[in-house]
């Protein structure tokens, strides 16, 4: 059964990447989706990243009780954790909930109200028109959101450390600027790219093949978020193992 679904998912993706009927209309749709996925999620990502960074600083400080460990380590650990794991993965899971459910519901509703059939009858490649702009917006905007998330998470760590007194601003700044490996950014962006693809394509698949009515649309939406989250975590492990 799962192999059937995976096969259908691959076939759907094949249809998605057919030549667009009219590039101008697709570009307009891509811009709309980028605004929704990117700008529309900015506030949520900003709040989550800042607080996660602040909490991380407090927790690292709580665990590093030894006098033999310099407090600058707090900044270093926070920086690497934020860049490598927290920003890409937490952002992706949050976005899977926000964007994934919206994509699945939107396409699912279009399916049950015959709007997708209407596109097909007009001679329009429905998977291409509906899903391609969403995938392109996902693979471009999620990495951008992750970059912003990294910055805000590290900034949140600075604020949390300073306000609580867990680490001084000078120690924290020294920590985040010591032994920085730029390759970690590459790893994070590869993850963000993969996650952006999952967040948009998996819910689109779930919505596209909905049969039934409102209940089935909501079930597909739930399934889309669950499968996206699991896929994100599996791919997180695979990309980490491959690249580090």
């Amino acid at each position, binding site marked *: 059964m799962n192999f059937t679904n995976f096969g259908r998912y691959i076939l759907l993706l094949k249809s998605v990447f057919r030549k667009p009927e009219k590039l101008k*209309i697709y570009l307009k749709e891509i811009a709309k989706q980028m605004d929704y996925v990117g700008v529309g999620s900015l506030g949520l990502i900003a709040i989550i990243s800042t607080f996660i960074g602040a909490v991380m600083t407090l927790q690292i400080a709580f665990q590093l009780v030894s006098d033999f460990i310099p407090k600058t380590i707090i900044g270093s650990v926070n920086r690497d954790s934020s860049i490598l794991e927290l920003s890409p993965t937490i952002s992706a899971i949050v976005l899977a909930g926000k964007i994934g459910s919206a994509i699945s519901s939107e396409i699912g509703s279009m399916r049950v109200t015959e*709007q997708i059939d*209407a596109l097909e*009858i007009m*001679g329009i490649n429905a998977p291409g028109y509906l899903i391609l702009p969403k995938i392109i917006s996902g693979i471009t905007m999620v990495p951008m959101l992750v970059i912003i998330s990294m910055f805000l998470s590290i900034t949140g760590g600075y604020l949390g450390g300073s306000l609580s007194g867990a680490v001084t601003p000078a120690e924290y700044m020294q920590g985040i600027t010591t032994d920085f490996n730029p390759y970690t950014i590459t790893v994070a962006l590869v993850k963000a790219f993969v996650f952006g693809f999952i967040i948009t394509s998996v819910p689109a698949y779930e919505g596209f093949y909905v049969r039934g009515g409102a209940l089935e649309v909501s079930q597909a939406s739930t399934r889309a978020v669950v499968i996206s989250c699991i896929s994100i975590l599996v791919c997180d492990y695979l990309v980490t193992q491959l690249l580090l």
Partner: protein
Amino acid sequence: MIEVKDIYKSFSGNEVLKGISGKFEEGVTNLIIGGSGSGKTTLLKCMVGLHQPDSGSVLYDGRDFTPMTYEQRIEVRKEIGMLFQGSALFDSMTVQDNIMFPLNMFTDQTRKEKIERVNFCLERVNLAGKNDLFPAELSGGMKKRVGIARAISMNPKYLFCDEPNSGLDPKTSIVIDELIQELTEEFKTTTIVVTHDMNSVMGIGDYILFLHEGKKFWEGSNKEIAHTDIKELNDFVFASRFMKAAKDKF
């Protein structure tokens, strides 16, 4: 003209269409009628390619649609207009954008030309000036009429209507029926209407194909339908007390 030849279709072993054949001429209103579950919508979906028949063929002016590649089907579909049961208007677009959508996709017309075409289609369905409304702001009858306007925006050779009267009051149903018939005669389209509305059958049924349990039981015109001795057809057509009473006057 559209011709279907020996169409079979089953879902999970359940045979829905059992060898349906028929010819639908242009410039006349062709109806496919039958009770719920008789296979009429499945036949319509097989004809437009939303379902692939298990066997049989669908000929659009001699062009066999069933074995066509995706690209070949796209070319035929550009000649098809379809009115869906629930209208299937795009929720996020205004009436104007809905009607303009196929024009945007497949023509190189200027915006002015496209708006002129939209206004023509809206006038034709008596909805002039409703360009900026969203589907959510329209009544059921208005949605159907916008659906018809969208279906005719590309000057289709073939017009399909899936239960155009469902959910409409009798007066609005007649308006929709008359509109479909007028457009068919005016643009010489090959029009196929799937319905179980007896007003439509008696009003606009130039050619009627009656399906029962996935089989073709009868074909003829609305003038002939009252004079058959096929039990299944009579049970369907004269199911209501009103129709039974009216039968004697036919």
